[in-house]
């Protein structure tokens, strides 16, 4: 798993990380055709293109098929508890701004059991890239409805179809204070997926990317309507947002020029039900990051700690008779 030291040395010489450097020696164990595979590829490309040092990169996840992601990256990984990926990632980032933090989570992991953490993570706006693998189903536990499952979907816990309209992760995120980067991608448009993840990574703050992800195992034809008819995908283009290659804009003619600075329009686009918007819905680089707001003015050296402790002790000290009997204020 960990490349031998000698290799690391070589790195220092020719400075170049290759795709291979980001692949762990555990072969991905997702089903064939699973959208997670494409997301993994995109992220490994990103690491290569941004030349992220594997030892300085941390992938935090919860539990779910998507949360197996960190096992397949050659980087530090934290495959934790169902729903708790975000607070763990916040703890990692707080005192280690030098680390690149990524979070991979599922629609159940993030939007169901993890919903409270999700809302508050958006508000903390810590500098990390969050990939919501939204396959609209519980994959790992074998096909139960998720909050994002479309109404009427038959699953093992809803054999007669789900009862409610799906939760919309985009409108919820856009309703939270300090939202600073909100985007949507689809695993079947790898080029846009890559561009969006790249911009998400480069955005300083909490970058939330909802990725529509196929689960052939349990929902084989789920996204077919959108796959068959590119016109049902609306690509959001803008100089500050996504820019399409000629090829892409030829297939996806349904495009909207959307300024990521426009929150109200972003909310309207996010609310679309029939069409799937792809691109950057909202970006605001002005929102401060929690880790910066909480950074201490001075490093916590032993000397400083001693000084402060003595100051505090002084306030509470009773001195022996020889010394001044009065408390120091």
């Amino acid at each position, binding site marked *: 798993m*960990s490349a031998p030291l000698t290799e690391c040395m070589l790195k220092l010489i020719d400075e170049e990380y290759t795709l291979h450097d980001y692949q762990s020696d555990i072969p991905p164990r997702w089903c064939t055709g699973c959208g997670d595979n494409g997301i993994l590829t995109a992220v490994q490309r990103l690491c290569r293109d941004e030349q992220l040092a594997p030892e300085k990169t*941390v992938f935090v996840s919860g539990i779910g098929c998507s949360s197996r992601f960190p096992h397949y990256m050659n980087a530090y990984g934290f495959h934790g508890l169902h729903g708790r990926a975000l607070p763990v990632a916040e*703890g990692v980032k*707080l005192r280690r701004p030098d680390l690149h933090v990524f979070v991979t989570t599922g629609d159940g992991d993030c939007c169901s059991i993890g919903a409270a953490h999700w809302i508050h993570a958006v508000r903390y706006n810590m500098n990390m890239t969050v990939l919501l693998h939204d396959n609209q189903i519980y994959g790992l536990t074998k096909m139960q409805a998720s909050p994002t499952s479309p109404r009427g979907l038959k699953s093992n816990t809803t054999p007669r179809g789900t009862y409610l309209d799906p939760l919309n992760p985009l409108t919820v995120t856009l309703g939270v204070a300090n939202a600073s980067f909100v985007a949507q991608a689809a695993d079947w448009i790898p080029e846009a997926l890559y561009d969006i993840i790249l911009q998400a990574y480069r955005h300083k703050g909490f970058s939330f990317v909802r990725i529509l992800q196929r689960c052939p195992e349990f929902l084989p034809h789920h996204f077919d309507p959108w796959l068959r008819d590119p016109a049902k995908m609306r690509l959001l283009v803008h100089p500050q947002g996504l820019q399409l290659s000629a090829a892409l804009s030829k297939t996806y003619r349904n495009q909207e020029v959307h300024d990521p600075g426009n929150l109200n329009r972003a909310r309207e686009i996010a609310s679309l039900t029939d069409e799937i918007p792809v691109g950057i819905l909202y970006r605001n680089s002005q929102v401060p990051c929690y880790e910066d707001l909480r950074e201490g003015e001075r*490093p916590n050296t032993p000397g400083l700690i001693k000084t402060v402790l003595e100051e505090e002790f002084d306030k509470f*000290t009773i001195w*022996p008779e020889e010394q001044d009997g009065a*408390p120091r204020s």
Partner: protein
Amino acid sequence: MKLRMRTEAFPNPTRERTGCTPGDEAARGLAAAVGKTGGAAPRRKPAVTVDEHIVEIVSDSGEGAQRCGQSFGSIAARTGHGIWTVEIIPAEIQPPARSIAGTSGNRVRLASRRIMNGGDEADLVVAFNEQVLLSRVRADELKADCLILLESKWRTDPDAAIAASYAHVCDELTARGYRLHEIPMERECVKYVPDPRRGKNMFVLGLLCSIYCLDPDIARAQVRFVFRKKDEKVIDANLELLQAGYEWAEVNLDLKFAISSSRPREPQIVVNGNTALALGVVASGMEVCAMYPITPATSASHYLSDIFEKVGCVVHQAEDEIAACAFAIGASYAGKCAVTITSGPGLSLKQEGLGLAVMGEIPLVVIDVQRGGPSTGQPTKAEQGDLLAACFGGHGDAPKIVMAAATIEDCFYSVIAARKIAETFNMVVMVLTDASLATAQQPFPRPHFRDDWLAPPVDQSAAPDGAKPYDWDPRTGLAARFIPGQPNGMHCLTGLAHDRSSRVAYDPEANQEGIRHRSLKLAAFQRTLRTPAVFGGEDGDLLLVGWGSTKGAIEEAVERLRAEGSRVSALHLKFLQPMASGIKEAMQRFDKVMTIENNWCDRVDGDLIDGQNRRYSSLAWLLRARHLIDVDCWGEARGEAIKPGAIVEVVRHRLQ
């Protein structure tokens, strides 16, 4: 690995100083002052010499009895008395005036020697109205012949009902043998301040200084200290009230008690348990405290929030306890050993997270300031109800280290030790305290800062070739862990069963290997523990075993019982999981063994409860299982610290 344990009481070399010495400078100054105010010349009053007194000051909340009591305690401490102060906390946020549930104040036990608990019933109580006084009577907190100093203004209250109630209570209490002194507090205070209701408490402080012959210089210095953030006018007004109270007592009260005192040779600090915890967090070198507010733990976080930033560190108030725990785990994983502070309900919520830390072998310090349970229970009250949940709360086999702080001083050192243990063994270390330690104050030797309290800087060196993140040592179960940033150490930590390379382990052997090594670490740590010393005699008729905040009360009870001639001793445990060796041998040297715990155990009196179904106190349960000795238990769940007197009673009864 060596750990500095500070459980033994601190040796306290002192120089004696007894009796009331009105001859001294300060008092003469006051006498003069009294002269000036043209009152009757101060009568020389013989001071009754006593070994200790318990004094309570109670009022409606907001009337300042707490500040008065704390100041009184500090003055007494600075004068050289042994003290222990206990907060009397109203059950309601903002209770109605003159209500029983609203009683707020402070209990100060002052003695000629160092004391380790709040003692029994009060000898003297100062009450701002008869209702708060009643609440103390009802709670049986006053000695039969307790001295009462009561604000007298209610006798003439315009509201007839109030006046009647006041008169009635006075008559009844006098009839019942209490020694009542009615004091025109506000009437005197208006002479100096416009709103006497707000100044009263300093007037009372003056009274008490006179009654207990406390050094007036120290008293004045204390008042200045208390109001240091206010402007001079406020300070002067309060000094005046202090003096007025002192004078009034000198002239009008026939009460003087002399308690010998001796100023310690080395500096002491006076803080409560929660402040000690917060100071311990700073001193341990931890950089992150992730918490969610919950009584009674919160005040520790309050104080820590105040000072932690000064050393460049962070108190993070998370969205809930689960997030707080996960946040702390993330910080620890990234090399910054973190602490999460909570109380009962929070502990229940953190159980899943703690299991992950155990499985991932991530060092983590968890502080549980216990309160009354179950469920929301009695948030402001003391109980030792979380021991078994701390040991066994999570699903699956999740070995953790559980320790408890026995004194306020111990709160400070326990956190430092916990951080060290956590990082040495890559384990979860729980530190249990409770509401009674959280708010009690007592002087202890000012700590001498040591660099080795602190965590070493995060290791960012490259991991050796082919090294594995869980390369468990077959003898100790210990494994070096790799921290993000270390080249060559990349791996994926997981809560799933995993092998030495942290890969998901599907086969039976790998699963058991992990479980075995995580369990082994507990044994390895257990081997480092010293057998705790027995207090009293090495053998005898009865051994009392305790843990946590009950230490002071138990040992005082033992002293009294031994003075009566009973062959009773005490054993106090700092580490509850694992437990030190030698405890069984200690217990075997006594005919009977009984735990004293501030938690529930079934009484065997009813017709339903028998040996087949009796629910034992937590520690008794652990000792019985481990050592197969018939350990009996006695406990209360009254929401307050156990009194030494109560223990004496129980023991006398059991020894019959």
